[in-house]
């Protein structure tokens, strides 16, 4: 009941905010606003609305390289960027370097109407406000599954069985797809799979890695089993290339980003039999742990630490306007799975929503997860190519991570 009340209040406030913004001609916030973030359409929409609120002097630098410049751009005093739009993996670097401020006071004063579920808290302190969600989940070809008479897979074991049938029926030679390009993508797939086996990346409360166990081996073995049904070039296929394979009609089952399914289901880039039969489903499981083998992602905004209080307030107000329910319209509705009130899910969003509903784990917001991710991306290919044993690969990953963590002060 209180939630309902809050929401109505929130909408009322938002409406008020919008009216005053219109009435004032510009500027719903006085002060310097400068945004850095990634460049995909959903973030473009948020930044555009925030800039409209902040007036003519505000700037946005939206680029795929945002992660390489945001720490440097927020370290100076005053910081070049008053806000960075980040995801749960990249906020960690900002927290580690201590360049973003706690939003507690700002939320209390100016953001009481932001729904609790959008607030990202670390140790009880609000550090970011999330506005969209993303996850990887199953994408499948309805017609192919019908042909072999299989149900929609819910586990990777089902995927392997279906893939076997599809190959035997001579429909496709390489029916499974996946973004297994060595580097970030491959590490992400392992992270999904390892979480799916119920494994823990680190010894609790420490930076000591602990993936060289039977769960790590299980995750690697499942990845290798899947790769047998993938195009032989799988180690060079990033999510772009995997989607291209899908559109060419060469793949029937894959684990893919929810944010990319929209373009797979539209009528561009593929034959009608492909896009009409492209369907999404929830996350897959592996083994009997019951944990979905996927990670949940959010994108949200932060406020820089090294700026004046006035600028922080202006930035907070502008970004709040940028991620308010008001930005949802016919054009922006389909750009993402928005976390704001008033978002109407569409067919393409079902996969992400199912992932959330299945209780999947968020991508770990751990200070040293990025180091492990890099070490994973560098070493897993050795195992998938059959150059060494799973245990050896896991040992290599642990050694590479340990050296890096030592250099960064996480381990002594």
């Amino acid at each position: 009941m209180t939630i309902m009340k809050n929401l109505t209040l929130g909408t009322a406030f938002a409406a008020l905010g919008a009216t005053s913004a219109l009435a004032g001609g510009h500027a719903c916030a006085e002060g310097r606003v400068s945004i850095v973030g990634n460049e995909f359409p959903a973030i473009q929409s948020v930044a555009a609305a925030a800039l409209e609120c902040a007036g003519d002097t505000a700037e946005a630098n939206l680029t795929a390289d945002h992660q390489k410049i945001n720490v440097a751009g927020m370290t100076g005093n005053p910081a070049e960027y008053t806000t960075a739009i980040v995801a749960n993996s990249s906020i960690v670097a900002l927290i580690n370097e201590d360049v973003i401020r706690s939003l507690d006071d700002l939320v209390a004063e100016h953001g009481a109407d932001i729904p609790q579920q959008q607030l990202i808290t670390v140790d009880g302190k609000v550090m970011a406000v999330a506005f969209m969600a993303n996850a990887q989940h199953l994408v499948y070809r309805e017609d192919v599954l019908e042909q072999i008479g299989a149900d929609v897979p819910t586990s990777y074991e089902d995927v392997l069985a279906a893939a076997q049938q599809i190959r035997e029926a001579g429909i496709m030679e390489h029916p499974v797809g996946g973004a297994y390009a060595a580097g970030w993508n491959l590490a992400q797939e392992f992270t999904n799979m390892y979480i799916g086996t119920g494994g823990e990346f680190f010894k609790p409360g420490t930076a000591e890695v602990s993936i060289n166990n039977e769960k790590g081996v299980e995750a690697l073995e499942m990845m290798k089993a899947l790769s047998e049904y993938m195009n032989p070039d799988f180690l060079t296929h990033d999510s772009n290339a995997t989607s291209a394979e899908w559109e060419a009609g060469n793949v029937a089952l894959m684990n893919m980003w929810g944010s990319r399914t929209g373009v797979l289901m539209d009528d561009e880039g593929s034959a009608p039999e492909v896009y009409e039969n492209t369907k999404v489903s929830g996350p897959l499981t592996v083994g009997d742990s019951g944990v979905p083998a996927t990670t949940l992602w959010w994108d949200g905004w932060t406020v820089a630490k090294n700026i004046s209080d006035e600028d922080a307030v202006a930035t907070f107000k502008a970004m709040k306007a940028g991620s308010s329910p008001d930005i949802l319209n016919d054009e922006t509705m389909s750009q993402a799975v928005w976390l704001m009130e008033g978002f109407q899910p569409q067919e393409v969003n079902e996969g992400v929503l199912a992932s959330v509903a299945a209780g999947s784990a968020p991508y770990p917001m751990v200070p040293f997860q990025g180091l492990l991710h890099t070490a994973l991306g560098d070493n897993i290919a050795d195992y998938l190519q059959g150059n060494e044993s799973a245990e050896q690969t896991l040992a290599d990953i642990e050694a590479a991570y340990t050296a890096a963590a030592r250099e960064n002060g996480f381990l002594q």
Partner: protein
Amino acid sequence: MSVATRRPLSIRFLATSFLMLWLIMAAFPFLWTLWGSFKVEGDFFSKADWANSIFGTLTQVETGGSFTDDGYYGAWVQEEFWRAAFNTAIVCICVVTISLTCGTLAGYALSRSTYRYAFWLLLFALIFRAMPPITLVSGYLLPFFEWNLWGHLSTTIIVLVAINQPFTLWMLHSFFKNIPKDLDESAMVDGCTRFQAFRHVIIPVMWPGVITTGLFSFLLAYNDFAVTSMLLAKENHTMVPKIASFLGTTQTKGNVMFAVAAVVSVTAPLFVMILFFQRQIVSGLTAGAVKG
């Protein structure tokens, strides 16, 4: 043609067929891209069947014709690629001018000095060039943000000039070494200062070598990605980082055809430029621009 350069038929045939083979190898990927830039993405990738990229099967389905200019329209009109082209023009002109001005002065001095320190300067310039640019660039970020230099075209221009100085120095140094010393020294005997001798005697004869070096500077500024993508704010992006931004990210699809169309259009002005400057490239190097 003099007697010495006349070739027997068999050698000519061999040379011609080798050249044809090389030209096909060199130009085919580009011509393929040119052809493909008028297709839709499905045909360009042609993951289903490579012949699609020739016949444009999907282009027919999606646009109704065998050719489409969607890529060009998207890149130039929708994504305002001309802004990036304009920025590139500024960057290239400034980089070439500044790096040649600094480079000719220093290159000339290096070629005329007989002291050991000139050699050490050249040596260090070479060692400097070994530094991987990405390390340099990531080192610039913090001070540039601190001093409010980040994101401007001017900063990027200076950085590109600096990074390119070692190459420019080496090339111009060897070039000036081939201009006889008597030229400027006799001018100095006549009462000119060193700078006057440089201005009135050396500058008139140095153009071929300078133009050649300038072309390499130009190509560096034109094609640079590491520096421009990291040091320029989005609105100041030059063409190459702009093209990279068409390629999409891990979680979202890009507009590959925009990138392909942009690459093709980026190459066109170079064609004109090479035709225009090819004589100078050759006459410049002819005067001995590059001697180790």
